[in-house]
């Protein structure tokens, strides 16, 4: 369980990092906190020849408040920074709540928001949460800067819209609209594991929606545009219509699980002020 050989480059500015990405293209891989990448390197499931370590890029850290109550988070903001409220929370507590349940404390001390998003695993918290709150992801390359809606970020299993020469530099999270409350539910067999199912509910006075992470079945976050229990279950069944398996009970269980997960997120939003 030792990585294959690679070169390790340590840029200290975004410009340097972007230039290295332009130079190395598909052979290069960005390392932020490395809490997903280094296990993959250790298991040799990822075999980059060049690792571009951006953990020393000061520009990627910290958060700035935006007009209108939103917050721009540097991609290198750790999960623990959200957990410990070292950065402002644009959502009135959702980001703090979610971060505290990511992996284990030792992982949260090193793992980063941008790293998790770029890794594009829909069973991880941030891709689903950022889709739910309508965040934008800012990426930069030698070709310039562009924004990607978090809802379009994850395109398939571990496949993101971030191009190989692009660096994810920041995430802009808008404030929740007035009167909208958040709820969250994560189903995992053990605390700290990746979710079997996770759901974010945003509940307004008369309407709202739920975003579902059901990565074992669907590799991208799924929108369930209703708060009604039967409608949620119907939407889940619809989203998982193609799900087949030898074990019919297992298939029924998966559909039921995600419906319950979404419904619990809705109730969580209603329960806590």
């Amino acid at each position: 369980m030792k990585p294959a050989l690679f070169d390790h480059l340590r840029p200290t500015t975004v410009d340097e990092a972007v230039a290295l990405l332009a130079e190395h293209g598909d052979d290069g891989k960005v390392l932020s906190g490395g809490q997903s990448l280094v296990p993959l390197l250790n298991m040799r499931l990822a075999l980059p020849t060049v690792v571009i370590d951006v953990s020393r890029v000061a520009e990627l850290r910290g958060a700035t408040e935006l007009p209108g109550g939103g917050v721009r988070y540097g991609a290198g903001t750790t999960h623990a920074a959200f957990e410990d409220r070292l950065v402002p929370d644009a959502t009135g507590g959702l980001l703090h709540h979610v971060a505290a349940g990511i992996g284990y404390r030792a992982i949260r001390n090193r793992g980063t928001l941008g790293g998790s998003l770029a890794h594009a695993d829909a069973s991880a918290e941030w891709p689903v949460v950022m889709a739910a709150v309508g965040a934008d992801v800012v990426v930069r390359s030698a070709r310039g800067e562009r924004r990607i809606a978090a809802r379009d970020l994850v395109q398939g299993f571990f496949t993101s819209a971030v191009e190989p020469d692009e660096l994810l530099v920041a995430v802009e999270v808008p404030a929740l609209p007035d009167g909208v409350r958040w709820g969250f539910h994560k189903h995992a067999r053990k605390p700290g594991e990746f979710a079997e199912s996770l759901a974010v509910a945003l509940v307004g006075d008369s309407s709202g929606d739920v975003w579902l992470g059901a990565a074992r079945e669907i590799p991208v976050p799924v929108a369930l545009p209703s708060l009604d229990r039967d409608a949620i279950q119907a939407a889940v069944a619809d989203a998982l219509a193609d799900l087949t398996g030898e074990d019919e009970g297992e298939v029924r269980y998966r559909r039921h699980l995600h419906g319950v997960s979404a419904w619990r997120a809705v109730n969580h939003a209603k329960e806590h002020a």
Partner: protein
Amino acid sequence: MIEVTLTVNGREVTAAVPARTSLADLLREHLHLTGTHLGCEHGVCGACTVFVDGAPQRACILLAASADGSDVVTVEGLEGAVADAVRESFSAEHGLQCGFCTPGMLVTACDIVARKPDASREEIRLELCGNICRCTGYVNIVNAVERAAKAVHVQVAAR
């Protein structure tokens, strides 16, 4: 090879290592600090947990090159009132059997006691969930962390 300079248990060390070297392998193979144990080598078991700049991190999924310039404290270097209380409590409560997980347990326990001194039993269990022990069934480890937190409280109150 990459030259890495970091502080380990209060001592500045410099080593030239291949880029793929983890902090854990740097500690064990180059500095011969074999107290840091390697179990799963992908961040799940917690045996390799060490303090990096005051925060517990997995030494198996942290490249030595990424840790360049940081201040590392391993199980060999734990000291102070919290560490003393944690060690004594693990002994008194029999918080280990084979001892393989213990280095990571002690580091994590020190972090829990320092960061959440009033943690309930349930919170202690949650905080410990990233450290796997295959011997004890965890009860004695949770007892030890609880006892250490109380001992540190008593010391603070007595001051």
